């Protein structure tokens, strides 16, 4: 056990700590699981081969997130250029939403929240995901996306408002639908 290099241990620790949140973040951009995992694994390999000085430091996190973001955007560019590759992969690449919205008049909170999250504007969504999934601090998000902390704060507030607005409207619709149905039943 004493022979095991501590660089290797630190690297493994960093992998276990960051792999999942990085993949979750990548998925919000790339939306294909295998591609996400490949991208993130590649980045870790690159860290081992060329950036060992970062291992065990806080700066590693910034590198991992920035590299993930850049590689995802590159991947998106490439896949847009060849539409065939996009089609052959996943036929249904649209947002995960509630399976049967039309059927359930009183919609499930989770389903509404999932739908609302997909509808956030891209930048806003990125900030929100980095905060709530990757658990980055506002400072770290600001550095990764190269925006000010004030912008991060505002984007978070904006996300909360939009999410809340969407859910409230849908729930209001559901209630008025029930009310309407009840009204119809009364008439019959």
């Amino acid at each position: 056990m004493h022979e095991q290099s501590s660089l290797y241990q630190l690297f493994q620790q960093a992998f276990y700590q960051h792999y999942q949140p990085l993949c979750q973040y990548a998925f919000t951009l790339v939306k294909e699981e295998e591609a996400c995992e490949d991208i993130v694994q590649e980045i870790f390999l690159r860290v081992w081969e060329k950036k060992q000085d970062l291992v065990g430091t806080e700066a590693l996190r910034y590198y991992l997130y920035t590299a993930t973001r850049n590689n995802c955007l590159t991947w998106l560019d490439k896949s847009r250029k060849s539409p065939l590759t996009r089609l052959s992969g996943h036929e249904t690449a649209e947002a995960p939403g509630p399976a049967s919205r039309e059927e359930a008049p009183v919609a499930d909170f989770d389903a509404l929240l999932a739908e609302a999250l997909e509808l956030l504007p891209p930048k806003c969504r990125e900030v929100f995901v980095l905060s709530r999934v990757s658990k980055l601090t506002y400072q770290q998000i600001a550095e990764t996306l190269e925006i000010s902390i004030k912008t991060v704060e505002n984007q978070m507030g904006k996300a909360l408002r939009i999410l809340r607005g969407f859910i409230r409207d849908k729930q209001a619709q559901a209630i008025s639908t029930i009310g309407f149905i009840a009204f119809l039943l009364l008439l019959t």
Partner: protein
Amino acid sequence: MHVNEHIAAIIGKKLEGQATTEELEQLQHWLGSGAGNVLEYDQLARIWAESPRVLNHTAFDTGAAWTKVDAAIGSRPRTAVVRSLLAYRRIAVAAAIILLAGAGWLLYNNTTRWQTMEALAANQSLRLPDGSEVELRKGSKIEYPAGFTGAERRIRLTGEAFFRVQHNERQPFRINTSRSQVEVLGTSFLVRSEATLDEVVVATGSVSVIDKAQSSNRVVLVAGQKAVLEQDRFSQDRVTDANYLAWKTGFLEFKATPLNKALDDLSHYYNISISLAKGHEAASKTTLTVRFENESFESVLEELKQVTGLGVKKENGKIFLYQK
């Protein structure tokens, strides 16, 4: 009743724990100025709390990914290779037993893909498939499935870890040690499982701890409480400081703390037994007010001697303090 941009940003900061005093005052003022506002705040807080779970896509198999990356980085230290060979041998033995027992059992093992994370050289943080965070104390081990499907989220712990469990009412989070089962909805707490006892300390939320030997023997703990299960009996107490997390934070704080309690905390952090010598228990009336941050055991012992005026002697690897 609709929240404006400014307040929404402040609410985000507050939930994150980053709001300034001024901002908190503004928030309080806003909350006080209308009943509808309190409701809106609750709704936003709920959205903030539930989002990680809803956003977390299907689990990414960190263990399998690590195996790939590990193989790719080439020249591995010898001990790592030895460890993986041992793993194969264990699996080979298990396979023989499984085949004798019946094909059904073998199938079960292959599909659940249980992973083990052991903190060998240092504390280790990791993220579970549902977004929950675990910090394993060095020397401890956790086993968990690749994905939390089914009615519950179940993991196994050997040793000591601090958990931040992602809120999910519909899928209770259950931690099994050899002795007890700790059940939570969403909260942060510590579980410590030793040879003769289990201890659970709750930082936020609430947790129930069940004696596996007798499931009717159980306690429910809320924030600031702790319980110890020893010889099939639970003893409960209030937690008065954050020293139980010293292994994670690196610092120990004593504020008029009775000497016995302080020595217990130090023993636990340094993994060295320090106590009052037999016959010198009167010294336990002394209280300690001092703070140690990432200090070596030797310097702490020196400081103890100076502050308490007690003498120190070593016997069989244990430290004893005595009245001179």
